[in-house]
């Protein structure tokens, strides 16, 4: 059961062979052990910059209450 739960969910994507060859040359001797680890790294970097911003989880009223506390504690004038 636990082995089943831990099944990794990897998927295969296709990239042009010349690009793959270029990447293999580029990562030789670096900390990247495979084409997949390099592509994963780059995609994580790209995606993290594109994440949609969610709204803050507090209302105007909540914000005013927080500001009051911050003033009372001397954090805000």
């Amino acid at each position, binding site marked *: 059961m636990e082995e089943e*739960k831990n099944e990794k969910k990897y998927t295969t994507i296709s990239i042009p062979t010349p690009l793959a060859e270029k990447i293999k040359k580029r990562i030789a001797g670096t900390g990247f052990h495979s084409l997949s680890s390099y592509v994963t790294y780059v995609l994580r970097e790209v995606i*993290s910059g594109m*994440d949609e911003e969610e709204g*803050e*989880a507090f209302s105007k009223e909540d914000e005013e209450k*927080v500001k009051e506390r911050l003033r009372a*504690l001397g*954090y805000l004038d």
Partner: protein
Amino acid sequence: MQKPHGGKLINRYIKKDQTQTAEIPEFEVNTNLSEDILNIAKGVFSPLEGFLCYNDLENVINDKRLENDTPWTIPILLDFNGDNIKEGDTVLLSNKENGVKAIFDIEEIYTYDKKTLAKNIYSTTDEEHPGVANVSKMRPKLIGGKITLLDSKQREFDNYNLSPRETRILFKEKGWKEIVAFQTRNPPHIGHEYVQKTALTFVDGIFINPIIGKKKAGDFKDEVILSSYETLMKHYYLKDRAVMSILRTSMKYAGPREAIHHAIMRKNFGCTHFIVGRDHAGVGNYYGPYDAHEIFSEFPDLGIIPVFFRSFSRCTKCGSVVNDKICPHDQKYHINFSGKKIREILRDGKVPPEDMMRKEVAETILKFDNPFIE
């Protein structure tokens, strides 16, 4: 404004009178676990909404990420003996010391391997390591599921205790866009001030964030750390550029993994940068001095910028605080900032030399009858 880790600032707190708890079985948890509950509920551990389930734990152990690929390096776990409860149950978790009461919806009950957990998180199975020792004391099963905080009581230092949503509003009101966080467990010496001000030079504000809580004999008391920082900030920092607030969480001494965890928490407070020193969150000789720097290269998607400091010292030739990138002089001209030496001088009731610690800071510490934990 800095995005919370995982994209959403978690808020799992509802007022006690909004829910009925009389029929729910209650379990007392220890103080460390109750701090975890508070940190989950207030969003310090965003995006966690509760204690880890099996797949998340396996991913954290093996890949330093949650199941959904979000970077996460320190497992937040609830261990128990395995009696009287089952998956799908709802229980009340409580802690008398902190007055914590939280609803816990049990999603999953599972077993784990202590050696694998210790080896992967702490890079050792040596029982002398405090984190490994804690793992070996853990109970045989883990429970995963979401928590909802109902209540907690007022505590000492609450005036310095801001939640992530409060710091975020504070930074916004101050007009800060780039904020560097500095973690500490000690009163500030001149070296700390150098590091903080060097980092501050390039951003809008500094968030000084001492870890408060259980410490070992010989450490400075929490109130001493806070008073000494108040003194330093009053005399040597611009009011509109520095803020101090505490963080209640236990040190795990997991070195590099904990450095990432510390950065994630500060990201949730709204910080964009995080200062990482030599042997950050290390203990003994379990980690290399710069392991906590190198691990950041594994996380291009962490979303907070590490500011690395290597060793720094006072150079008698330069006549100032220096680091290994800026001073050409031989080691013999360098005086290290030894926390141990400063403690010895203060223990004798004396003020350390001004090139080690600000006189005002030392005098603040010496006003306490005993600044150290017995």
